[in-house]
Structures are given as C-alpha cells and as structure tokens.
C-alpha cells in the first residue's frame, strides 16, 4: 500500500467548498441562481461531491490517527465528531421548528388549507421531537447530516478493515450497496417510509472516498489517465446532459426510445442510482485529469474563499442550511424579485466565506500555545 500523502490536498477543500455553496443555492426554493448548480446539467449533484470528499478526508485524518495512536483513540475521535454532527443537526431542527411555528401563527390563507397540514407536526410535539431525536423525522433539506452521522458512527470499524485490507473493505462496501438495492434495505423514517438518503446505499460513495484516501487513488491513477477512460467519461457527461435537457424541454423526451427510458428511469436519488454514481465518477475523472494536485491557482487568492469553506465543512454546511431558510424567509417577507434572489444568494455565500475565515482565525489562535488559556477545561473544555 502506498503511503498516504502527507500534505493536505487542497483540491478536496476547494471542491467541498464549492459543493457547500451549491447545496446552499439548491436549498433556497425558487431561486434563479440555482440554475448554475450541477444538478441541472447531469444526473448527480453536489451531495455526491460532499459525501465522497467527506469520506476521503475522514480516512485521511482518522486513518493517520489510527496508525499513530491506535484503534481506540481514533474511534473515540470519530465518534466525537459524529456527536458534534448530531448536535448540529438538532440545532438546525430547532430553527426549522421555530420557522414553521412562526408561519403557522402568521399565515392562514384558505387557498393553502392543505399545505397547512405541515403544522400538524407542531400539534404533537411529544411525537415529533422524539422522532427527530431518533433521526426518524427529518424535515425537507435536512437529510444530509443524519446520513453523515450514520456514516461516521460506523466508520471506526470500516477504517480498521480499510487500513489492513483495503480491497476487502471496498468489496464489503460494494456488497452492502448491492444488497441494499437488491433487498431494499433502508432505515425507517417518520411519519412513514424510509430515509431520503439511504445510508446503506450512500455508504458506497463515502467508503469509496475513504478507499481512495488510503492509496486507492494511487492505484487508480493509471486507469483514470488512460485516454479511453477519459473519453468514456466525457461521453457519459454529454449523454447525461442530453437526458437532463429532456426534463426541461419535455418535447425532446419523445426522442428517447421507450425501451430505453423504461430501462433508465427512475434515476433514484434515495438509493444512489448507479447512473448518478457513474456521473460522479466521470466528473471526478475529468477533474483529476485537468486540475493537478499542484495547480498554482489552488494557492491563489481567488480560490481561497471556496477552500476556506471546504476546510470547515460541518459548520459551513449547517450555516448554509440555516441561510437557505433565512433567504427564503426574507424573500417571502420582503421581495421575491429576481434581484432579491440573486442578492440573497450572494450575501449567503459571502456570509459562509466570512464565517469560515473567522473559524480559521479562531483555530489558529487556539493552536498557538502562547495565547491558549492555561485551563481550557475550566473554561468549558476544548471543542
């Protein structure tokens, strides 16, 4: 097994940062700016990028900890991270409750008597809160963090195997994915149904990212640079774009033969449809080919904002979910105009960058022993 690279790959931070921006833009309903996001140009969207890179960085960071400090210490760190994500998720859930509680008091148009059914969740807080704490009740746009919690919660064991027998770990991940699809395995959700992001399926992307981080990327590099693979990836992206175009111009849909659309649809996001996975792989192949690891622009000021966001992914992700709520709220209360949509999208991203910068600054002063308070535990402990 090739030793993992010591220096952090800034491309990961860059693309995770961009993915966070795109997720934010996609989460604002009826936002004209979301037309620039990749989900409109192919099968996969920013979620795939986020999950893959999260798997990669998790293996990179905790893999080193597991080698240096052993299984117990690394596992403890991973579970602490999972706990942080859980707390962050519950925090966002409370904000969601606050918003629907406000709307239920202030909006009562008879035209939307049916939509007001969403407030039923407020009428039985005993059930709603309980199910939310169990991660079974998840409001719209709040499915990614629960997925991440489950993936992190099971990651110590996976990482242990991954560091010893990488191919076995990858094979297990693929087998679980196939089994999840074949036997329709998923976690239960409230009030009914199953998780929007099936963890048994989406773990494939996380596990594949982790496998790449511990030397898999090195094994694949020859394969990924072969002209045949590159052209196949390009062709697949073009094909995917053509199919997506038929969604926006339904009249083009008649050009797709019926047997083909019967075979292709549905392109299932819940279970990470293989068409989505291949689309992500194609994007990755072309990205790795055309953006080298030592690309000078990665050190330039221009890409810095995205990289900083990618380096604080959990905080910025949560902030993005909150800002998307806030942006929609402002649009509803103040103005829905196109300029309001553009303005709130831009302000949102600026805020994400500003907070990421603040977090970096904070991390720096915390790391500097000279300025560290002597008794961090008394001051509330290290976070």
């Amino acid at each position, binding site marked *: 097994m090739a030793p993992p690279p010591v220096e952090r790959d800034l491309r990961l931070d860059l693309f995770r940062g961009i993915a966070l921006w795109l997720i934010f833009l996609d989460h604002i309903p*009826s936002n004209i700016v979301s037309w620039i996001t990749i989900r409109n140009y192919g099968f996969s969207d920013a979620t795939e990028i986020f999950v893959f890179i999260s798997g990669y960085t998790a293996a990179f960071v905790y893999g080193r900890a597991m080698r240096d400090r052993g299984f117990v210490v690394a596992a403890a760190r991973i579970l602490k991270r999972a706990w942080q994500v859980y707390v962050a998720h519950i925090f966002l859930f409370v904000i969601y409750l606050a918003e629907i509680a406000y709307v239920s008091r202030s909006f009562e148009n008879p035209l*939307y008597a049916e939509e007001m*059914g969403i407030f039923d969740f407020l009428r039985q807080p005993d059930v709603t809160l309980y199910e939310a704490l169990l991660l079974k009740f998840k409001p719209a746009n709040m499915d990614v963090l629960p997925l991440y919690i489950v993936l992190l919660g099971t990651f110590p064991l996976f990482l242990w195997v991954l560091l010893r027998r990488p191919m076995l770990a990858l094979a297990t991940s693929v087998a679980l994915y196939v089994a999840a699809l074949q036997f329709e395995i998923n976690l239960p959700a409230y009030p009914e149904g199953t998780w929007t992001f099936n963890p048994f399926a989406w773990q494939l992307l996380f596990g594949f990212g982790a496998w790449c981080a511990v030397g898999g990327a090195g094994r694949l590099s020859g394969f990924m640079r072969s002209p045949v693979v590159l052209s196949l990836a390009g062709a697949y992206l073009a094909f995917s774009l053509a199919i997506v175009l038929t969604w926006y111009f339904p009249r083009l849909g008649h050009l797709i033969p019926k047997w083909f659309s019967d075979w292709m649809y549905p392109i299932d996001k819940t279970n990470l449809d293989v068409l989505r996975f291949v689309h992500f792989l194609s994007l990755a192949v072309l990205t790795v080919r055309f953006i080298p690891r030592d690309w000078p622009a990665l050190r330039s000021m221009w890409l810095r904002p995205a990289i900083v966001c990618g380096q604080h992914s959990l905080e910025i992700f949560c902030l993005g979910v909150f800002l998307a709520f806030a942006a929609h709220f402002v649009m509803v209360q103040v103005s829905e105009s196109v300029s309001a949509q553009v303005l709130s999208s831009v302000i949102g991203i600026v805020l994400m960058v500003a907070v990421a910068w603040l977090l970096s600054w904070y991390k720096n002063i915390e790391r500097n022993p000279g300025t560290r308070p002597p008794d961090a535990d008394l001051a509330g402990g290290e976070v």
Partner: protein
Amino acid sequence: MKSFIIALTGVFLCVSPALAGEQEDCAVAAHLVTADYPLPRVARAIAQKELKVVVVGSASSLLAGPGGKQEAAYPTRLEAALSKRLPGVKVTVATFAKPRTTADSMEEDIEHLVQTEKPAVLIWQTGTVDAIRRIDPEDFRTAIDQGVAAVLAADSDVILMNPQYSPRTESMIEVQPYADAMRFSALQHEVPLFDRFAVMRQWGELGTFDLLDPTKKTDMAERVHQCVAELLADLIVQSAKLPNAHDNHQ
C-alpha cells in the same frame, strides 16, 4: 409546437369578451396547459351529449377549511365552465376528495370508483399530502402509475393534476419532486397533465394573484379556483378534439 398553437388558439377563442378582467389575467398561464394527448372517451361522451367527470383529490379540491364551501371549489366551477363550452351536452362533475390522503390510498379508491361511477374522465389531483409526509417520490410515482393504468383499463380517460404552488411553505414542504413525478408519469402514459404547480407559480411570479397574502378570507382562493376551472375546461375540450393517435397504433 402544433399543440402549443392549438392551446393558445383555444385560449383566445374561449376567453370571451364577456369574462371579467381577472379571467383574462389567469390566461397568462394558459401556455403551460397544453393539449398534448387526446381524450377519446371524453370525445365519445361529448358526441353522446352526456359527459361525466369525476374528481379524485385531497383538500385542495374542496376549498375546505373552517367555513369553506365546497361549491366554491374548482370542481363545481368546472361543471359550469364545461357546460358553457359544450352547449347541449349534459355535464356532471362529481368530487371524491378527502383531506390528508396520500396518492397510494387514493389509488385504492380510484380502482373502485372507475368501476362504480364509470366517468368519461377522471381528474386525479394529488401530491401535496405525499410531500408533507415525505413519501419516497418513487413510491409516489408507482402509485400514480398504478392508478392511471387502472383508470385506462376501466375504459375511462384520466387527467393528472399536480400540487399547488405555495411560496410561503416552499422551504418546509418540498413539492417539486412530486410535481415532477406527475409530469413524468403523464408523459409516460401519454395522458394530459394539468400542471397546477407551474400554472400557479406563473400567477405568483407575474402577480396575477398574491399567493403570499396571509388573508383568512376565501375570495382570493375562490378566484384561483375559478381560474383553475377555466383552464381545466379548456384542456378537456381541446384534448377531446385531438385526433386519437391510439386508434392508429392499436
């Protein structure tokens, strides 16, 4: 393109000068309601001078809520709008709508309803409850597919009507995947779709209706339902006039 022109012509023909300004306003969304697929059973029923329509839906087909009156909702208005467009034809519209019903449980009712009611066309309005309860969109689409197949098998036509566009609750209820699933299902089965989501979004964007108005009064809701009824009646009449492509294929 051809059907687009037909639909557009239909709008200009049907919006008579006698109608109030409001109705002309709601025609701004008429290009989103296109007669793409024929309704052969409706055509047959019109020829026989007796058109029976059944609406299966949830609360947004009732205009219910506190103090709501069912006769103000679009199905009753559709009966009037169709009667006006089809002089000499006896039009009846029956509503079978239950609040808080998902597509899956409606689908069971539908199989029974088409057998007992034998309508020329069944209008299936659904999606919002599924979005609130976050039913897997694929399961939702399966229910739609089964329902459509059941109606067609019982020798009735079917029109799908997707959820309302509700800007105020957009960040809480993700309706889009369900609206899309119904668009897709309509294309697959080659049945007409009343794209209520797109139509209402157009009205919201152009300011035809203030969909964010927190009013408790029903007058705006009634005007929206009137517009839905008018556009729906256009869709039915125009689709019934299309040549039946299925006759050639089958």
